[in-house]
């Protein structure tokens, strides 16, 4: 699956603010709520519930909070770049690059394929280095577009 199939250019956000993990998740839930029309608390609860089972901060400053939601129509994906935020990551390092992924209940294999594609992209050190250097959403979207290989 290609990331650009699920990520719109206007869902790339850069915000330099000092946040906590909770505030960061709230912000993502808020954004997703605006775009999808689903209740903000519903989204937030699903994300927090997933974090409770194990962090989605997969190391090297990268996190992929995700959840499967009842009532969601299409896969929603957003990219978020922020100041280094403590995220209880596996390597205890703060997080500054995030992909939010929300999938409808009937997404089936697409859910896992999307997660695989996102983690594959962020596992690439060259890509994360570029993402960290650029602050304009349109540049960031272009970097994602350029490195979006479907395997």
């Amino acid at each position, binding site marked *: 699956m290609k990331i650009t199939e699920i990520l719109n250019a206007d869902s790339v956000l850069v915000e330099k603010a000092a946040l906590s993990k909770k505030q960061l998740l709230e912000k993502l839930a808020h954004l997703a709520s605006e775009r999808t029309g689903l209740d903000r608390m519903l989204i937030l609860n699903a994300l927090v519930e997933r974090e409770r089972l*194990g962090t989605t901060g*997969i190391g090297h400053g990268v996190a992929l909070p995700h959840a*499967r939601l009842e009532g969601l129509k299409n896969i929603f994906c957003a990219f978020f770049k922020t100041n280094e935020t403590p995220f209880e990551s596996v390597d205890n390092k703060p997080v500054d690059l995030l992909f939010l992924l929300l999938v409808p*209940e009937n997404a*089936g294999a697409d859910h896992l394929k999307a*997660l695989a594609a996102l983690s*594959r992209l962020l596992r690439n050190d060259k890509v994360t280095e570029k993402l960290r250097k650029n602050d304009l959403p349109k540049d960031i979207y272009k970097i994602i577009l350029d490195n979006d290989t479907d395997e």
Partner: protein
Amino acid sequence: MDFINLPVLLFSILLTISILTSLVSSRVGIPLILAFLCMGLAVSAGHIEMLQSLHRPGIIFFIGSIALAMILFDSGFHTSMKNYRQNAKPALLLSTLGVVMTTVILVPFVHFLMDLNWTFSFLLVAMISSTDSAAVFSLLRSKGLGLRERVKSTLEIESGTNDPMAIFLTLSFILIIQQQLTNQSIQYGFLFPTLLEQAFVGGVIGLGAALLIRTLINKIPLDTALYPIFVLGLTLLCFSMTNLLKGSGFLAVYVAGLILGNTRIQAYAQISKFQQTMTWLCQITMFTSLGLFVTTDGLPQILDIGFILSILLMLLARPLMVFAILHFFKQFSLGDKLFISFVGLRGATSFLLALLPIVMGLPYAHTFFDIIFIMVLISLAVQGFLIPIVGRWCGVTIPVLETAPINTQIDLPGLGDSSLIMYQLDEQTPVVLGEKIPRWAKPTLVLRNGISYPAGTGLRQLKSGDKVYVFLSSELQRPILNKLYGRPSSNEIMTQGDFPISADTSFDELEHLYGISVDRGIRNSTISDLFHQEFADVEIGDRLVLDSIELVVHSIEDGHVSMVGLDFDPKGKNSIHHHIKLLSLKNLKKRLTSHQKTVK
């Protein structure tokens, strides 16, 4: 005096150069052994007269046997008993039955390809039937190769224990050949009882020797520098006694080493260091002196057969044997078996055994020696260099840190269980990052910028670059000290790209989270349950495939799986292990997806 000085000059130059080659290559062990081998070969090819005076098979065999005994003692000494208990069964089967099977599989090829009679074919194959302990050890412990514990200790135990079997087979066939040559009636009946006798006597004396050595070391006050030599002497005593009593001396020293290495003994650190150095010295001696015996003129004629046999051994005999035996141990995954098949390194033992026919003056002896030389060379070069790559491929490697925590242990004479550990701190050490230190674990001494600060002299915060000395009064404290003053061990490091999840998560929850299809029978059990059900002794790095996700064990607490990683992209890791596993699942997945379709 030049008759002494010239050879020594030559030898020392070669020695220095070959040791320096280890700097160039990060894969320390193998290239170094190869360098020594080539050194001997160079001397042999150059027909250097002075060193050629060493060209007496009897003497070299004598030196080689002692060297091998020392290497095997060290192999045992550095094998942890805990791993031994867990993996002894499969490993010991590989080292006994496995050696016989390897021989039986390869013999017909030798018989027909070389047009050699059966007994000689058996002799040739028996000599190459065991894996080399020193090579396997130095390779598996080389920097940057983190291996799953089960695979690593199985290979180590196998290589440490299969030499006696190969030696026994070789000696048996030499006896049979001698009977044939003197037209005696050939007797096979003695073989099996002799094998049992050798193993039994070897094992018992090894055990007794270990207990005796332990008591002697702990009771007799000696200059610390003398302990390692004392142990060396006693080891050789054990070796020769066992052989005189018709036991396997090699097995005895291995058993003795295994027990001694796993008990608290006086001057453990010194002995351990000395053993490592001795092992290197023994390997250098063995490979250099054995290299002398290769008749370089004869090599071209046997190059092709050596090459073919190597390939057959590597790709047919060993894999077939490993798969057949490990089939009965379901804790080994496909990747584990592939990797164990691949690490069938041949080395010093085969070489040494190849000297025996020369010593005994048997026909074909020199040809055999050259063939073994080619096979060892190919094995060390090909397998040695490819192991890190194949390891990643088979999914048996676990991530390691670039630098392990530096710690040195200093034994305190007279205080049996206690020792002083030195840690070199860096910016990632937990105590430097502000971790609280319990009272008992506070440093006894801190060295900073060359100045020593004894306990209680007001060093509030430890810094990167400090050298910290901590008193260890019981082995139980070591893991906690390592956690505080060292870096996290490889076991605690997660693989990037895996999503950690609590192993207490039930499959019901997992299905809810990711919409994957789970077999109804396991829906109420947790991830941890399934791992313990599938693996008798589950360990970090073990994998289970579930639909299109792989679950990887990340951590184990109190014997129970506590965290696992979810890998959504198993294919992305470019490993044969994953590809094959997924292939075999293809049918199952097809069934599942067609099932899902019909539901929709």
